[in-house]
């Protein structure tokens, strides 16, 4: 048996908990290959979920972190077989692995093939886990029948009679469910991830509290999540989300299964997961009315289900959506007799079933929550613990633990009422305003847990000890000690397990709170997957009211300061909260008290008012009468009436404001309306578009020959280095950092300045991208005793925030010449053409998602296609914040902008010796003024030297190719077919070295011409006409409501610098660099691997931070 398989299957925890890293450190490359081969063979033979998944993660890590570091594979040119890539995109992981392994056997180790294997193993590992969770949830007793009910005549649920109208012509009573949300009093160290609970039940423990909530100083806290159900006099299922301001009337069964087409996916998932529309009916093509007849045992009746979340924004880390799902499932189960009590609390087995069904609902809706998230269903404070799978459990023999944990409610003897009050008097709950995607964090936790690196494993144990300590302190009633423990947990184990749990915003807040409140601040407490959203600050009760009032302004001030680089979805808010001792709780509202929330009437009544009075149904008339009564007599009548009138009357003012602001911005940033109109016409006429971006199929595209690339990764050439060093010492080189981008992949279109994002903690502090680049220039300046001029190019979006932050941070201590180069052009986004959307989504191979998530994506894409048709394909995109309607026009313009805006002229005047520029992307953090590469650039006399890397599977977007015999860079958009890309060995790092005079020559300019603005502008325009214009589809976020975000695809155009390599006058040279140097950080999900593969240390080594 191999050593790694022995670790995986060991029963002795000391062996079982050994880390992969500790083994790999001492293993030779051939040992590693042999171990990987053995794991690959054995993983198929095991029935144990844990064995299989841990083997997959070991294989992933070997290929991601260990083999690529071995000299044998570092710069190999082995290609990734496209057939494998296709399988990978289609989630056919096993086939992909076979193809990649065959390629590895045939051609030997390689960085590229290892990256492909790593990706496939990782994908398969998560797929295996997801499949197991799904299987377990479907197999829970009480859920199985829903999957085999395939026809309304198989249907066995009946609505409780109490919910039917008492007499003909009377409106039905309303069943109302109020559910608290949950907070995790200890932070569980993410042990509530399903797989951790199923693999290490003894270590999966969470202290979970159900709470009522209200925005500070608005009203007294109440259960923030509410669900309503009533019978209506039409055979439909009407779903209404008051907080999302959306409603739908479902007439066909199939519509219930269409999750992505509107905002009501969660309600639909609840209707299915509660069994009202059993999952087995999907695709049955049966009339919904038949099912409703069975359900109500009457003709012509239907159901209305309403959800309402009281002012709790998205991303609160309080599991609002899971508890809303649980609340909806609970109300539906009560209504159909699946819970014994129609009203009041649920019994324990019913709570467990609601929790299981909430997991099912989340899977149906394509989302995922934690194992403790439905904690709001239970009352008060409870310890949730993993449970070992015993004989009879469906998990027995598959995993060590059960899917569903046990909930032990802590009685008032264990945690006294006084302590509970003390806790409420000490804790300030807030939403910091950041809304981030926690998904990658949860994947990182699973991955790290299975790889068991020593420090993280120790941290996990420490987090468990802190939980015990918190439980003890709760019993003792010492809230101060709890605060100290949660702070220690955050500073220590949590960040040791996941460094990305913290961020600059949170740390700044903690620092400022500590400075203001000193010893009265007892500790910080992180909620959920990461900080920045829902958070807790624990204070001495004497100072709590003051702290509660101070935190709002403090968070607003800090968030405004950091807003340039940190994505904030909303204004920070402070809550009032109280512990909820009921859990989910229902009451039956009948007669006069059978009313829905005001927001419901605001949403639904305007349509009724437009109907002929005589055509109103009994229900509709009753709704109007009730609301009318509430507008006259009930408390809050005036406010209610005003809100309703606002809703009824058109609000034209804001729209005009927006249009004016957009117009002024376009004017201010140099928008070219003639060019826009031309592009719009060509786009609509089909002359340009995604398909037209591509080079004609008749062009021959091949991989470059080895001698066309200079390998800078092997050893050091003293002669070249000396040449470079001399240039550096003589002040001949400047750095140009391209920082005009909004980092659309970094924040999924949130519109922040990527360069200002405090992306990672380096040398003890969170650093922004710009800070890192300036620290490298500082180091080079010191090393060569010659200040390096540093130019930061900016765009309409990034200029002001960049300027402001650099001033605030005193240029991050950089004392050399620093120039901002503002852009001179901007585009206006357009509604995409349907053919381009179809091309992007249907013709271009792309990653298929997990079955249910893919279904959701497909339906939301269908909705986006209708959106584009309704708004007018190719028309201006203006329905968003003005800045979100503009777009940068591609980084081709950024270098010519230096000519146009006078930055280069000023620089040359100040430093006439300047001859070279190193241009790099803001996210290529490893790029520095390397003397050897500079020497190579000087020695070849090239106009431009481009740095390339060997291709990994995630490197999409073109690369270095021989096009009709000439080496040049080809953008991914221009490649005629997808498989071409994987035949190209080298990927463009987007770092290039330019000889200033030669480049000016290509533009037809000299240094002296830079003073002639018009001549420069003409030269730039003339050359730009020779560079292709690409049409691209980008995601843009539109924010609304309480932290809600929609993502829309929009069309924009861009010109890219890589196309300069296609110009005959450009003398280009290509240099192969190490990945650590050339890696671009496009998505936060890359950060963990980047940190762990040594890249972060490499970059830190290049920097000289002033602090």
């Amino acid at each position: 048996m191999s050593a790694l398989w022995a670790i995986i299957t060991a029963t002795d925890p000391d062996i079982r908990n050994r880390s992969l890293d500790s083994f790999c450190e001492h293993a030779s490359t051939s040992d590693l290959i042999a171990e990987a081969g053995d794991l690959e063979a054995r993983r198929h033979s095991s029935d144990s979920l844990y064995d299989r998944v841990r083997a997959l993660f070991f294989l992933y890590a070997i290929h991601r972190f260990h083999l690529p570091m071995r000299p044998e594979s570092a710069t190999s040119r082995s290609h990734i077989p496209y057939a494998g890539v296709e399988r990978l995109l289609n989630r056919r992981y096993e086939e992909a692995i076979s193809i990649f392994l065959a390629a590895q056997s045939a051609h030997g180790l390689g960085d590229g093939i290892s990256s492909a294997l790593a990706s496939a193993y990782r994908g398969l590992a998560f797929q295996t886990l997801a499949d197991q969770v799904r299987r377990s949830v479907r197999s829970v007793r009480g859920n199985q029948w829903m999957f085999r009910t395939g026809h309304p005549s198989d249907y066995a649920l009946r609505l409780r009679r109490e919910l039917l109208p008492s007499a003909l012509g009377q409106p039905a009573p309303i069943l109302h469910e109020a559910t608290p949300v949950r907070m995790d009093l200890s932070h569980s160290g993410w042990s509530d991830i399903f797989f951790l609970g199923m693999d290490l039940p003894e270590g999966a423990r969470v202290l979970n509290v159900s709470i009522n909530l209200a925005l500070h100083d608005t009203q007294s806290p109440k259960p923030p999540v509410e669900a309503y159900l009533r019978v209506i006099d039409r055979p439909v299922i009407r779903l209404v989300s008051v907080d999302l301001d959306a409603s739908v009337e479902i007439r066909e069964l199939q519509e219930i299964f269409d999750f992505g087409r509107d905002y009501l996916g969660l309600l639909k998932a609840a209707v299915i997961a509660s069994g009202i529309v059993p999952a087995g009916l999907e695709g049955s093509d049966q009339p919904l009315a038949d099912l409703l007849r069975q359900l109500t045992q009457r003709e012509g009746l239907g159901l209305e289900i309403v959800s309402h979340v009281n002012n709790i924004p998205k991303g609160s880390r309080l599991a609002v959506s899971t508890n809303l799902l649980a609340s909806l499932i609970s109300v539906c189960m009560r209504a159909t007799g699946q819970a014994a009590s129609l009203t009041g609390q649920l019994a324990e087995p019913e709570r467990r079933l609601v929790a299981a069904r909430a997991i099912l609902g989340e899977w149906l809706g394509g989302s995922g929550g934690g194992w403790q998230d439905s904690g709001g269903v239970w009352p008060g404070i409870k310890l949730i613990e993993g449970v070992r799978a015993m004989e009879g459990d469906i998990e027995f023999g598959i995993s060590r633990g059960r899917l569903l944990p046990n909930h032990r409610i802590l009685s008032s003897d264990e945690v006294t009422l006084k302590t509970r009050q003390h806790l409420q008097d000490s804790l300030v709950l807030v939403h910091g305003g950041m809304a981030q995607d926690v998904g990658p964090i949860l994947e990182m936790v699973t991955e790290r847990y299975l790889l068991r690196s020593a420090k993280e494993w120790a941290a996990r144990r420490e987090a468990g000890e802190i939980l015990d300590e918190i439980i003890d302190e709760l019993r003792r009633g010492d809230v101060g000690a709890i605060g100290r423990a949660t702070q220690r947990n955050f500073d220590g184990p949590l960040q040791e397990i996941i460094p990305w749990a913290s961020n600059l915003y949170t740390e700044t807040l903690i620092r400022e709170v500590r400075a203001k409140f000193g010893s009265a601040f007892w500790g910080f407490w992180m909620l959920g997957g990461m900080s920045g959203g829902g958070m807790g600050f624990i204070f001495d009760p004497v100072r709590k009211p003051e702290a509660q009032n101070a935190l709002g302004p403090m968070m607003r001030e800090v968030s405004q300061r950091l807003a340039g680089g940190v994505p904030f979805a909303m204004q920070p808010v402070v809550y009032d909260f109280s512990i909820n001792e009921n859990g989910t709780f229902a009451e039956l509202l009948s007669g006069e008290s059978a009313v829905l929330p005001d927001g419901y009437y605001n949403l639904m009544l305007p349509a009724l008012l437009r109907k002929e009075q005589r055509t109103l149904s009994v229900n509709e008339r009753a709704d109007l009468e009730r609301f009318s009564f509430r507008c006259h007599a009930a408390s809050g009548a005036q406010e209610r009436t005003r809100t309703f009138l606002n809703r009824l009357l058109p609000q034209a003012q804001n729209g005009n404001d927006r249009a004016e602001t957009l117009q002024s911005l376009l004017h201010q940033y140099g928008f070219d309306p003639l060019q826009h109109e031309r592009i719009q016409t060509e786009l609509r006429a089909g002359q340009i578009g995604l398909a037209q971006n591509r080079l004609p199929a008749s062009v021959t595209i091949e991989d470059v020959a080895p001698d066309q690339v200079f390998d800078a990764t092997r050893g050091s050439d003293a002669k070249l280095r000396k040449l470079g060093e001399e240039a550096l010492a003589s002040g001949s080189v400047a750095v140009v950092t391209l920082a005009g981008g909004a980092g659309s992949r970094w924040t999924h279109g949130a519109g922040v300045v990527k360069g200002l994002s405090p992306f990672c903690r380096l040398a003890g502090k969170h650093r922004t991208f710009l800070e890192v680049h300036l620290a490298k220039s500082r180091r080079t300046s010191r090393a060569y005793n010659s200040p390096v001029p540093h130019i930061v190019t900016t765009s309409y979006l990034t200029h002001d925030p960049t300027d402001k932050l650099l001033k605030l941070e005193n240029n991050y201590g950089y004392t050399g010449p620093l120039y901002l180069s503002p852009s001179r052009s901007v585009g206006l986004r357009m509604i995409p053409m349907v053919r381009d959307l179809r091309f992007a989504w249907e013709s271009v191979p792309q990653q298929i998602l997990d079955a249910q998530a893919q279904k959701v994506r497909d339906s939301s894409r269908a909705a986006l296609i209708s959106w584009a048709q309704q708004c007018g394909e190719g028309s201006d995109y203006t329905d968003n914040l003005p800045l979100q309607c503009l777009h940068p026009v591609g980084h081709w313009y950024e270098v010519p902008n230096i000519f146009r805006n006078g930055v280069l002229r000023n620089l040359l005047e100040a430093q006439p010796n300047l001859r070279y520029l190193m241009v790099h992307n803001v996210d290529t953090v490893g790029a520095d003024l390397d003397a050897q590469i500079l020497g190579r650039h000087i020695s070849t006399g090239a106009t431009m030297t481009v740095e390339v890397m060997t291709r990994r599977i995630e490197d999409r977007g073109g690369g270095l190719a021989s096009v009709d015999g000439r080496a040049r860079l080809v953008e991914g958009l221009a490649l005629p077919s997808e498989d071409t890309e994987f035949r190209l060995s080298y990927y463009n790092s987007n770092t290039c070295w330019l000889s200033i005079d030669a480049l000016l020559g290509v533009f037809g300019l000299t240094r002296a011409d830079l003073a002639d603005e018009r001549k420069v502008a003409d030269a730039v325009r003339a050359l730009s006409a020779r560079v292709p214009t690409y049409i691209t589809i980008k995601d843009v976020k539109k924010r609304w409501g309480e932290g809600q975000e929609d993502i829309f695809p929009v069309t924009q155009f861009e010109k890219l610098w890589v196309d300069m390599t296609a110009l005959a006058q450009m003398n280009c040279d290509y240099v192969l660099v190490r990945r650590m140097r050339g890696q671009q950080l496009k998505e936060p999900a890359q950060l963990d691997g980047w940190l762990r593969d040594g890249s972060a240390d490499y970059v830190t080594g290049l920097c000289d931070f002033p602090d």
Partner: protein
Amino acid sequence: MQIRKAVITAAGPGQRTLPMQLLIDQQGSECSVLSLVVREASRAGINDVCIVVSPGDEEPYSKLVTQDSVRLTFIPQRDPRGYAHAVFCAREFVGDEPFLHFVGDHIYVGPESGGSARRLIDAATTAGCSISTVQITRENLLPYFGAIGGQPVQGKPGFYRIDTVLEKPTPTEAEQSLIVPGLRSGQYLCFYGMHVLTPAIFEILAELLSDSAQKRPSLSSALAILAQREQYLAMIHKGQRFDVGVKYGLFSAQLALAMHGRDRDKVLTEIIQVLATREQSEGSGQ
């Protein structure tokens, strides 16, 4: 254990005419529903039958029953508190003996020569405990019946030791609580409507009926308690039962009786004629 008495409940409000409906029995004679029901008890060797009726129905019902061998006792249910209460009304009639019980609006048609009740009584006599007949039923019919969960009795195929009884459970409850090894998923053991019960049931019913929280306790909830107090078995029955109170119930019962009776060929011929005529008229219409 000797079973000498039977209790038939026929006190359902709104269904008071059902026992009076006339059917043609297997021998081709016209008789009332109630008469057929009482005959089932009589075939099982029971001579002492109590019928629980709505007040005022004693006289009309007494004229319907033609079996001379059976001694009939009518007990009016003065307080309409449901089915379980109707059974309870027969407490004094039953006394301290086990008894056969079934409802007055169901017709039982089975392959057994002695009738369904005969087989049940034989089984109860041998086992010496309460037994209910059950049928394997698909889950979509759960809203209509009481259902049981239990374990098979070793060496007695078709018999189960009852652990749980639920009245009209949801499929969710059924899947969680009514576990019966050997059944296919989505199938449950539901009551066939015929029981032999020990007098212990009356103590339980008394407790339930005196509980003010329970306005109309079900017989199933009493049977669930019975299962906790003493041995209580279920026996799978392969016959058919027809609820004459539902849509086409009377028609289906008549059809079943005819198919098992002397006039089978005659009735079949008439059905075929009806079908053929319909086919012809459809054909000519085209």
